[in-house]
């Protein structure tokens, strides 16, 4: 038994081993990933860790996973335990905005110090290759005829996929409460139901459908970006089809509540240096994430806008009061 324990401990030690850097501006940083290892926020936190250390921007970076409830558990712990501490940060994203509202979380994003939006993924609507729906216009017509007959496969209720489906339906003048949304717990399961033709359309981030579309098994009808995307130049945007919806599943990094303006300034500069580094660009390319860096007041304004819009649509769908 003993060697098993030491094996596990060794793995843990290797995983957490500091790389060490002599000339960093900040000596130590702890990044909270409010999710289990492996998910998007965890990968974001670990990518940040990797680049900050390899470029010697921060001496020692540790990632701490606090999973649960759409990130609201990690957020609550962060807000309660890190007030005024300039050496901890938290990764979060758009999903957290919705989770805070639907879970009636006692803490929200106004209680942290947002630093910057880092990456984003756009939502796509796809149908099986054999589907009679050939374009967004066909989908709009089908929704207007009978919204209940159009079943949408996506991630958990109240998440980005569900919100996008609600916004899409609302934008074409159909009651978003009538969206026949089928929630799946994992990307694999929802994709399987779409490939098997069990649902009418699928809604998820573009990268989930990309490979299947290239293999001719799915047809991507549209994406939620402002302009066409370089990785899918043939796919029209929602706006091109006259559906005024633009949404991005973004990920951000925030600092602790109650830090001084100087401390905020220093963290912002460090993050900006990281975003401009080659290591970060390479990391994004390798993960297939778009760089949607936005900081300072512009990010604060965008965040406030997103929170208000999300609240409205969740009320419209009937998931929040």
């Amino acid at each position, binding site marked *: 038994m003993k060697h098993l324990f030491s*094996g596990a401990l060794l793995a843990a030690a290797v995983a957490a081993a500091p790389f060490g850097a002599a000339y960093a501006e900040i000596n130590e940083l702890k990044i909270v990933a409010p999710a289990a290892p492996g998910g998007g926020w965890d990968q974001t936190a670990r990518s940040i860790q990797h680049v900050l250390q390899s470029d010697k921007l921060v001496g020692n970076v540790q990632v701490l996973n606090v999973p649960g409830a759409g990130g609201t558990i990690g957020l609550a712990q962060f807000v309660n335990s890190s007030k005024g501490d300039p050496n901890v940060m938290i990764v979060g994203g758009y999903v957290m905005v919705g989770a805070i509202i639907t*879970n009636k979380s006692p803490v929200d994003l106004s209680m942290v110090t947002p630093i910057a939006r880092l990456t984003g993924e756009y939502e796509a609507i796809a149908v099986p290759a054999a589907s009679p729906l050939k374009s967004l216009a066909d989908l709009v017509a089908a929704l207007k005829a009978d919204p209940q007959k159009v079943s949408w496969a996506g991630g958990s209720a109240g998440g980005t996929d569900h919100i996008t489906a609600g916004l899409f339906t609302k934008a074409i003048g159909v009651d978003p409460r009538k969206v026949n949304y089928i929630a799946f717990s994992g990307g694999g399961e929802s994709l*399987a139901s779409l*490939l*098997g033709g069990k649902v009418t359309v699928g809604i998820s981030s573009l990268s989930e459908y990309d490979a*299947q579309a290239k293999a001719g098994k799915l047809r991507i009808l549209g994406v939620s970006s402002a302009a066409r995307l370089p990785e899918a130049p043939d796919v029209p945007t929602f706006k091109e089809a006259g559906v005024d919806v633009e949404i991005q599943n973004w990920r951000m990094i925030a600092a602790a509540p109650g830090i001084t303006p100087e401390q905020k300034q220093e963290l912002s500069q460090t993050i900006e240096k990281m975003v401009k580094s080659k290591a970060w660009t390479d990391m994004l390319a390798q993960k297939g994430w778009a760089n949607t860096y936005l900081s300072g007041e512009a990010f604060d304004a965008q965040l406030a806008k997103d929170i208000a819009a999300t609240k409205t649509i969740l009320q419209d769908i009937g*998931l929040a009061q």
Partner: protein
Amino acid sequence: MDTFAALGQGIMVALQPMNLLFAFVGVMLGTAVGVLPGIGPALTVALLLPITFQLDPAGSLIMFAGIYYGGMYGGSTASILLNTPGESASIVTALEGNKMARAGRGGPALATAAIGSFVAGTIATIGLALIAPTVVDIAISFGPEDYFALMVLAFTTVSAAFGSSVTRGLTSLFIGLSLGLIGIDLQSGQARLSFGVPDLLDGVEVTTLAVALFAIGETLSVVAAGARADEIIEPVKGSVFMNREDWKRSWKPWLRGTFLGFPIGAMPAGGAEIPTFLSYALEKRLCKKPGEFGNGAIEGVAGPEAANNAAAAGVLVPLLTLGLPTSATAAIMLAGFQQYGMNPGPLLFATNPDLVWGLIASLFIANGMLLVLNLPLVGLWVRLLAIPRPWLYGGILVFATLGTLGANPSLVELGMLLLFGLLGYVLRRYDYPIAPVVVGLILGPLAEQQLRRALAISVGDPVVLFQSPVALTLYALSALALFGPLLFYVFTGRKAPVGSDED
């Protein structure tokens, strides 16, 4: 044939000394984390991903394959010897396996688990190499209504298989079903039975419940019994290896387990738990000495162990052929693929054949390596049971708590572990079976979600549930499982063999 040439090439890649070393590290790590309850292969691979980034793709994927298969082995070892299921797929193994271990038959139990896993893993990996595209087409054609029918079959067979009294079995099952309701409802996004505690929003973790009921509940029972405990644990009685009869009783369950596990594992919503339940129920039905079930029947270890390893290979079918990750570990392995610039999806076999075949070949190697490493250790493992009782149970308690807290360092989680441990004690004290509670927690939410998906897609028309031939076949099997024993009685005038007490 192209497939064999490609596989041969893959085996050459996997047999390079460096890659063998990766496979070795992988299986050792996998076995270690499999033994620890709560910490599983998914978490391990996720933590290793950033480190292996610098290594070459083939080597690290081979290591991940080793961790994946190793986790399945480790889970069964802890189940059999300590009654502490390390993974949710090895819960069923604890039922008969631990009884065998206490009766001095831990050696054969571990051996049948190891050899059965090897046999099942090998057959399933061959299936993965040869018929993956066909299997995946069938698996994808399963709709929510078919999954619901599969859950109904699991409920009907399983509820008949556990415990001596139907009422007690159903009581336990309903406790599990109620626990399964806790948390955010996937379809509506609303919290149920969480009483304002944020930690409950994600529901009750299966391994937490299983470890609490099995390991902590039992520890409490032993303490409560004190000196009155008359049960003597015999570390070894007879040979530590399987005798002739063990082999004779094991080989058919291995094969049946494999044929249940591989296809169900390949289904996007199948998983590794359901085939183990079905295999246990099936073996109990087919066993010539049903009286032994509940007291350490080797078939009850051989079948489910084969089923969970075959399912582990089955999970890779949609991952490799379609790029669909259908389990936590598969999702992380997908991230691993992406890390090396591979585009996971239907074109993976065409664009990266050397890596895919290298991975499949390394599954064979990992499987063989696990057998070679584990069989000689069986004699050593069973000595664990020779530890004096207070030390043994003290160790189990520490071990169960560490594993659970390691996976999720939260006070609420610890509280749940202790509370469910008390529940386990009470259930034992009043002779209610434990396993159906866990079965209810696993199957309840699955059945509910599939039923609601099916009805939502049909806009509320229940006819959809009985339209597909697959669903109808599964319902027919359920009816047979329910009424079969009754018909048996009517036609032969004899009572159908009923299993004895489980725990």
